[in-house]
C-alpha cells in the first residue's frame, strides 16, 4: 500500500466518521414543541431547591414551581394570600398566625400542611443545610441560635446521635434526644467560637468542650469523637443544637401555623413570601435526598407549574400543575425558561420572536430604544444602589472631611449622561428615592456636587491640592460600565482635587475576596434590596455587619438602626431610619453613584406583566393576548 493511499484512506475514514457523528447528533436532537411562553432567564440556575438558592434567575423558577405562605401582588408588591388564605397579627406585632387554605396541594395530590412549613423552615435553618438565606428567618425567636449552633447553660437542646448511615442524605434526622443543658465543661482555651453544632471533619482537632445535658432526669455527657483530649465518659453526637421545639415556629394543627418574632418586623409578610421560604415536600426530600429530589422525575412541588425537564444551560420546561389550588387562573400551559448568558443573544432571540420576555437588554441599545419609544421596552426604577465604599481603616480615609471632599468632587450627572446613558438616576442617598412610592420612607440627600467646596474641604483637612495624600487605588470588578465609571472618577478627582488615583480591575471572585479582606482604598459596590424596607440597605453599615467591608463604625448610627429594627410604631420607625441615613450621608463612608433601572422587554402579546421596584414578575399572572394590539399592561 502506498503512503499516499493510506493518507487518503485515513482522511476519507475521518470524514465518514465525522459525518456519521454529525448525523447521529443531529438526529438525537430533541425537537421541543414551542411553549406558550418563553423567556430568557440569564445564566443557568444553581438549583431548584428553594433553601439553597440566592439569585434572581433562580427566584423566577422557584416562584413558578413553589408557593410560600404569601405571594406578591404583581403591580403593588403588597403581600397577597398564597398557601395561607388569611393571617392574623397580634397587637404587639410579634405573633403571626397563618391559616392555610384547604385546597393547597402538592403536585402528587397530597395536601400542603402547617407541618410541611414547620419542617421546611427547620430545614432552612438547620446548619447542615447551610442555607444562605437562613438569616431572613432569624427574626423568629431562637432561630438564630438554632442555625448558629449557639447554646447556653439552661437552654433546651436537641441532640442528634450518630445513628445515621453515612450514605443518608443530608438532613435525614438520626436518633434525637431532648433535654436541658446543665453545663459546658470547657477545656482551657476552648472558647467554642465554632459552636457545638458540627461534630465531624472540621479541620485540625481542637479542644472541644463536654456538654452535660439533663435527659429525662439523668445527666448525660456529650463530646465530639474527634476531640483531643477526648473525655472517655462522653458520648459522641452529630449535632447539638437549640431545641427546635422552642424556636418560634409551631404547627398548631394541620392548617394553622404560628410564628413568633423577637420584635415586630413590618415586612415579615413579604419575607414569608420570598422564594427561599417556599415549602418543600418532606416525603419527597427524605425519600430521594438532596439533590436527587430536585430531578424532574422525582420532584414534587406546590406552585402554579411543575418541572417537566431540564437541559443544562439550555432550557427548563415548566408545565401547568394540575393540583395547584388556583389552577383556573393559570392561563399558560407550558413555559420555557432559557438559559441565555449574553444580553445580545437574548435580544436576538426576542427580536426574532423566539423569546417573549427578556429581563435585560444590552446597555448600548438603550438610548436607541428610549428614542424610538418602543412600547415593548419597559424601563422602571429598581430598588438597588450602586456606590463606592471607602476603606475607613486607612489613613486619611478615616477622616470624614476627606471622604466628604472626595464624594463632593464626583459629578454623578456626568457619569449617568456620558457613560451609562440608559435612564439610570444619579444617587443622592443610599436608599433609592423611589422606595417612597411603596413605603413611607423619604431618604435624605447627601451634599451636592461642588468642586470648589470639595477642594476647600480637602485643604482644610490638611491636603491642599491633594498634596500629602497617599497614592490610592480604585477597586472594581471586570465589567465594561464599571471600568468606564472608574476611569471617569479618576479624571474627575484628578481635575478637581489633584488626586492621583490608580485603577485596580479584578475578576469577580478575586474582587470579592479583596473587599472581604479589606484590601482596598476605595471599592465599587452594588446592593439589590431583598424586601421593601430601608433596613435592607441601612443594616449593612452597622458595626461588624458582614457586609460592612469598609470597616466604618458609628455608635449613634448603630443604635438608631437597632432602635428602628425593634420599633413597633411605623412612623417612629421610619424617622429613626431617616436619622440614621442622615448620619450616613454626613459621615460618607460611601459615595452613592447611581440607582439602576430595570430593562424588561416584553412582547406585546403578553398581558399581566407590570414593571415594579423589586423586578418580581410572577409567571402565574401572565397570559397571552389574542389581540396583541392591546399591548402590555401599563
Amino acid at each position, binding site marked *: 500500500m502506498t503512503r499516499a493511499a493510506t493518507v487518503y484512506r485515513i482522511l476519507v475514514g475521518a470524514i465518514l466518521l465525522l459525518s456519521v457523528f454529525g448525523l447521529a447528533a443531529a438526529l438525537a436532537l430533541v425537537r421541543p414543541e414551542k411553549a406558550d411562553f418563553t423567556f430568557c432567564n440569564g445564566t443557568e440556575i444553581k438549583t431548584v431547591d428553594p433553601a439553597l438558592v440566592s439569585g434572581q434567575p433562580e427566584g423566577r423558577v422557584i416562584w413558578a414551581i413553589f408557593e410560600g405562605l404569601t405571594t406578591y401582588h404583581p403591580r403593588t408588591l403588597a403581600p397577597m394570600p398564597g398557601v395561607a388564605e388569611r393571617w392574623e397579627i397580634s397587637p404587639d406585632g410579634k405573633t403571626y398566625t397563618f391559616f392555610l387554605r384547604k385546597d393547597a396541594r402538592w403536585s402528587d395530590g397530597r395536601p400542603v400542611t402547617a407541618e410541611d412549613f414547620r419542617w421546611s423552615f427547620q430545614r432552612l435553618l438547620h446548619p447542615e443545610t447551610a442555607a444562605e438565606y437562613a438569616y431572613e428567618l432569624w427574626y423568629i425567636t431562637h432561630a438564630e441560635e438554632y442555625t448558629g449552633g449557639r447554646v447556653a447553660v439552661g437552654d433546651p437542646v436537641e441532640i442528634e446521635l450518630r445513628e445515621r448511615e453515612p450514605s443518608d442524605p443530608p438532613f435525614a434526622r438520626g436518633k434525637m434526644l431532648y433535654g436541658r443543658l446543665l453545663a459546658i465543661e470547657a477545656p482551657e482555651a476552648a472558647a467554642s467560637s465554632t459552636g457545638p453544632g458540627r461534630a465531624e471533619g472540621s479541620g485540625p482537632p481542637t479542644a472541644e468542650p463536654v456538654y452535660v445535658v439533663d435527659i429525662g432526669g439523668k445527666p448525660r455527657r456529650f463530646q465530639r469523637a474527634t476531640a483531643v483530649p477526648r473525655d472517655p465518659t462522653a458520648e459522641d453526637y452529630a449535632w447539638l443544637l437549640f431545641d427546635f421545639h422552642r424556636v418560634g415556629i409551631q404547627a398548631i394543627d394541620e392548617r394553622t401555623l404560628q410564628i413568633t418574632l423577637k420584635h415586630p418586623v413590618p415586612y415579615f409578610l413579604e419575607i414569608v413570601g420570598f422564594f427561599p421560604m417556599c415549602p418543600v415536600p418532606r416525603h419527597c426530600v427524605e425519600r430521594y435526598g438532596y439533590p436527587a429530589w430536585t430531578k424532574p422525575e422525582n420532584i414534587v412541588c406546590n406552585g402554579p407549574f411543575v418541572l417537566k425537564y431540564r437541559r443544562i444551560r439550555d432550557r427548563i420546561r415548566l408545565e401547568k400543575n394540575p393540583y395547584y389550588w388556583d389552577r383556573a387562573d393559570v392561563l399558560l400551559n407550558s413555559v420555557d425558561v432559557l438559559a441565555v448568558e*449574553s444580553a445580545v443573544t437574548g435580544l436576538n432571540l426576542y427580536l426574532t420572536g423566539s423569546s417573549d420576555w427578556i429581563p435585560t437588554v444590552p446597555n448600548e441599545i438603550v438610548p436607541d430604544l428610549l428614542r424610538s419609544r418602543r412600547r415593548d421596552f419597559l424601563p422602571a426604577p429598581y430598588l438597588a444602589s450602586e456606590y463606592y465604599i471607602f476603606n475607613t481603616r486607612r489613613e486619611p480615609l478615616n477622616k470624614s472631611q476627606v471622604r466628604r471632599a472626595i464624594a463632593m468632587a464626583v459629578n454623578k450627572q456626568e457619569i449617568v449622561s456620558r457613560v451609562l446613558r440608559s435612564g439610570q438616576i444619579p444617587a443622592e442617598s443610599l436608599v433609592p428615592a423611589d422606595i417612597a412610592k411603596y413605603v413611607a420612607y423619604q431618604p435624605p440627600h447627601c451634599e451636592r456636587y461642588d468642586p470648589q467646596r470639595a477642594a476647600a474641604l480637602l485643604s482644610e483637612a490638611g491636603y491642599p491640592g491633594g498634596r500629602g495624600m497617599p497614592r490610592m487605588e480604585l477597586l472594581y470588578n471586570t465589567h465594561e460600565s464599571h471600568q468606564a465609571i472608574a476611569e471617569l472618577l479618576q479624571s474627575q478627582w484628578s481635575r478637581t482635587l489633584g488626586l492621583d488615583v490608580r485603577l485596580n480591575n479584578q475578576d469577580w471572585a478575586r474582587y470579592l475576596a479583596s473587599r472581604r479582606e479589606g484590601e482596598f482604598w476605595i471599592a465599587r459596590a452594588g446592593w439589590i434590596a431583598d424586601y421593601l424596607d430601608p433596613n435592607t440597605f441601612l443594616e449593612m453599615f452597622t458595626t461588624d455587619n458582614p457586609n460592612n467591608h469598609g470597616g466604618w463604625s458609628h455608635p449613634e448610627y448603630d443604635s438608631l438602626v437597632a432602635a428602628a429594627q425593634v420599633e413597633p410604631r411605623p412612623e417612629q420607625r421610619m424617622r429613626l431610619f431617616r436619622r440614621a441615613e442622615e448620619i450616613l450621608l454626613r459621615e460618607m463612608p460611601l459615595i452613592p453613584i447611581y440607582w439602576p433601572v430595570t430593562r424588561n422587554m416584553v412582547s406585546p402579546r403578553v398581558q399581566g406583566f407590570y414593571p415594579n421596584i423589586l423586578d418580581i414578575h410572577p409567571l402565574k399572572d401572565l397570559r397571552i393576548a389574542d389581540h396583541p394590539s392591546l399591548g402590555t399592561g401599563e
Partner: protein
Amino acid sequence: MYDVGLDNVAQRKANMFRFIVSRTIWLLITLWAVFTVSFCLMRAVPGGPLDRERRLDPQIERNLAARYHLDDPFWKQYVRELGNVLRFDLGYSYRMADFTVNQIIAQGLPVSAALGGAAMLFALAVGIPTGVVSAVRRNGLADRVLMTAATLGIALPNFVIAGFAIILFVFLLPWFPAAGWGTPSHLVLPAVCLGAPYAAYIARLTRTGMLDVLRQDYIRTARAKGLSAIAVIFRHALRTALTPVVSFLGPAVAGIVTGSPVVEKIFAIPGLGVHFVEAAIQRDYTLAMGLVLLFTLLLYGANVLVDAAYVLLDPRVKLR
C-alpha cells in the same frame, strides 16, 4: 510498494504494543501532573466557590464550608479529590448544584462534539477544494481571491464572523434561528462560524502541499502519460498533498469537540465551552477540574492517534 516480510510484521506488532503501553503510562502521569497543578492553582488564586456579592453571616459561611469540606486542611482536600478522580466521580458542581460533574459533561460533550463535528466537516469541505483550486491556478485571480479570503478567515475572530452571519442570515434573510439548540437548522450558523478559521487554515495547508507535489517527477510522468488534469490532481497529487492536513486534524479535533466559549455564548449553545470559562470565573473547583482532565485526555488521545497515523503513512518512522 513496500515489500513487508513476515518477521517485520511481528516486529511491528510488538512495537505497537510497547508503544500503546508506554503511552498509557505517560498518559496517567500527565493526568496526575495536570490534576496536581490545577488543584494547587485553583486554591492559590484568591476567592473561592462560596464567595458572592453579599457577604454571608460568618456562621452560615462556616456551615457552607463544612458542607463542602472546604474547611479541611489542604492535603486532606487534595487526597479526597484525588480519590474521587480515581473513582471517576468528581462529585457535584458547586455552581450547578443539582448536577454531578459527570452529568454536566455527559450533557455538554455530545453537543460540543456535534457542533465541532459539523464545523470540522464544513472546514474540510470548504478548505480542501479551495486549497486545490488555488494551487492549480497558482497566482491567478482565483488563487488571489481565495487566499485573501483564507487570510481573512484566519485573522477575523469568530465573534466578528458570527456578528456578520447573524445580521445577514437571521435578520436580513431570515433563514436560520438567532440562537438556541434543538434542530439541525440551529447547527448551521454556529458550525460555519466555528469552522471558518479551520477551513482557512486547511486551505492554506492543502495549497502548500499541492504546490510541493505538483513539482514532483511522478506528476510530470502522469501528465506525460496523457492523463486528464482532473485525474492527475485527484488520483495522484491530492493523496500525497494532504499529509500536513492529517497532522493538523488531530489536535484540532480535540480542541473543537471540547467546545468554543465564544461561539457557544453568542448562539446560546449548551456545550462545554461556556462551562469551561464559567467554572474558572466562578471558582467551581469540581467542574473546572473535570473539564481540565477531560481536555487533557482528549488532546493526549488525539496526539497519540496522529503519531500512530504517521507510522501507517511512513514505515520509516519507528514507534518508541
